[in-house]
């Protein structure tokens, strides 16, 4: 499998706190990789370093390299904004723009960056919403405020918003942890379909979810990558004792 994103000896510090310790992983193109581990193990920190979200945290220091199609995204000459257009992100809590309609939320990436012509926008809104299986539910209320949607719908709207800007990689930070089981199921089905086109890295607390949706799994503990491999292998015959203890619920 072709590598899309490669972390090379990635270290993240927050002041004196060494949050991610010398991690090296390859994320394969058009695959779903789950990052699991107990709270505070650095999962989200790893995820957020892939779209340079730490740039905004003054205390954060990222060292090592992250290669996107072989190019180091932390190179001085590279603008974090252009990276974020290629590497989209979906957050734990659905966060549609509250002042915008459903329609405007989908094309928010364009609207906030300038103008977009009407036909192009219409087409983009329809295709993006169809892609996240939200079109049939909201096609009659595109002008309604996005906050009127249910939590699950809002999260799918956020995913639509993310894919509307045509990224190549999508990062998901526990995208279903604030949702009910039915909405969670819909999101999971969605992720399954999205990997045809995108490379997906998902942080999850839910082990069954990781087992269900991911092709590869990375287990982190105390800022260190303990084990990385095919999901099937990690969940059936892990090499490390720590991994086995965690996935069988003996600690964490």
């Amino acid at each position, binding site marked *: 499998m072709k590598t899309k994103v490669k972390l090379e000896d990635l270290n993240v510090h927050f002041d004196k706190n060494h949050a991610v310790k010398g991690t090296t992983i390859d994320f394969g193109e058009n695959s779903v990789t789950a990052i699991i581990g107990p709270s505070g193990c650095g999962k989200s920190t790893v995820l957020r370093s892939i779209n340079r*979200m730490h740039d905004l945290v003054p205390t954060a220091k990222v060292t090592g390299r992250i290669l996107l199609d072989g190019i180091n995204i932390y190179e001085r000459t590279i603008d974090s*904004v*252009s990276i974020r257009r290629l590497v989209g*992100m979906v957050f734990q809590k659905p966060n*549609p*723009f*509250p002042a915008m309609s459903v329609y405007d939320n989908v094309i928010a990436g364009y609207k*906030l960056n300038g103008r977009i012509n009407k036909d192009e926008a219409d087409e983009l809104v329809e295709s993006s919403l169809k892609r996240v299986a939200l079109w049939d539910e909201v096609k009659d209320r595109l002008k309604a405020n996005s906050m009127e949607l249910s939590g699950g719908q809002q999260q799918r709207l956020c995913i639509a*918003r*993310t894919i509307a800007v045509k990224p190549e990689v999508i990062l998901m930070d526990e995208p279903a942890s604030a949702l009910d089981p039915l909405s969670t199921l819909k999101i999971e089905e969605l992720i399954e379909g999205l990997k045809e086109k995108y490379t997906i890295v998902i942080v999850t607390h839910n082990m069954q979810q990781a087992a269900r949706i991911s092709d590869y799994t990375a287990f982190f503990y105390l800022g260190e990558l303990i084990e990385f491999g095919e999901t099937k292998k990690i969940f059936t015959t892990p090499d490390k004792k720590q991994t086995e203890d965690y996935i069988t619920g003996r600690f964490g």
Partner: protein
Amino acid sequence: MKIFSFRKLNNSVMTLSMVMATILVLVPLGLIFFHIMKMGLSSINLDFFVQIPKPTGETGGGMANGMAGTFVLIALASLIGLPVGILGAVYLVEYGGTRISAVIRFAADVLSGIPSIITGMVAYAMLVEPMKGFSALAGSLALSLIMVPIVLRTTEEQLKMVPDTLREASLALGVPLWRTSLKVTLRSAMKGVVTGILLAIARISGETAPLLFTALGNQFWSNKLTEPIAAMPLQIFTFAISPYEDWHRLAWAGALVLVTLMFGLSLSARYLGRTKQQS
């Protein structure tokens, strides 16, 4: 049993003193408003709003030029003060490193504590001296100096309350930080920001001291921003210390209009603040 009744007594005494304190706060406000109403209401008529002051000796006339002048000064002061205050707050919250922010914050606090007559002197030195004359511009500059720290601090508080998830949503879409700050963060804090702006305008609309040797005042209409301009507080001041009965009347009426304006601004600010909490 005895202790119990002591507690009850203690409680009523404390409650009573707090009620008294509240009344003591409210009474002066009520008295001022009532007195100004009594003295000013009879002099409020159409002439007051459309005419300029009559020469001494003649009766009648109004404060039209003063009201217009106050609006011009407020508008111009806002034009200078609002961008500085708002963008300054955006910088503090969205960009500022901790040390720089602390310095700016402290400077703003000191600036808001400076007696307003000093801001008048600053404007005098910056504009009146070099331009060799009193002007509406100088008056506006003095008022804007009072506005900036108020707008800066209220905007800062509002921006801090915008959840990070909203900023992240925008940034993750590849929207640059400056666009995110203006189009997402500032926009979602807009109601609170407007409340702060209204309070700042209410504050400067009654300022007299900084205008004394900047805008100077004008008995007539002024046509240029580089000329002295009339303002309500200045006119009230001039008329109130004059020996003419008719001018005293106008001063009372002016005071009533000014207080009503400030009252209206504060009420709108409160109303906006309240609707924000509901949403």
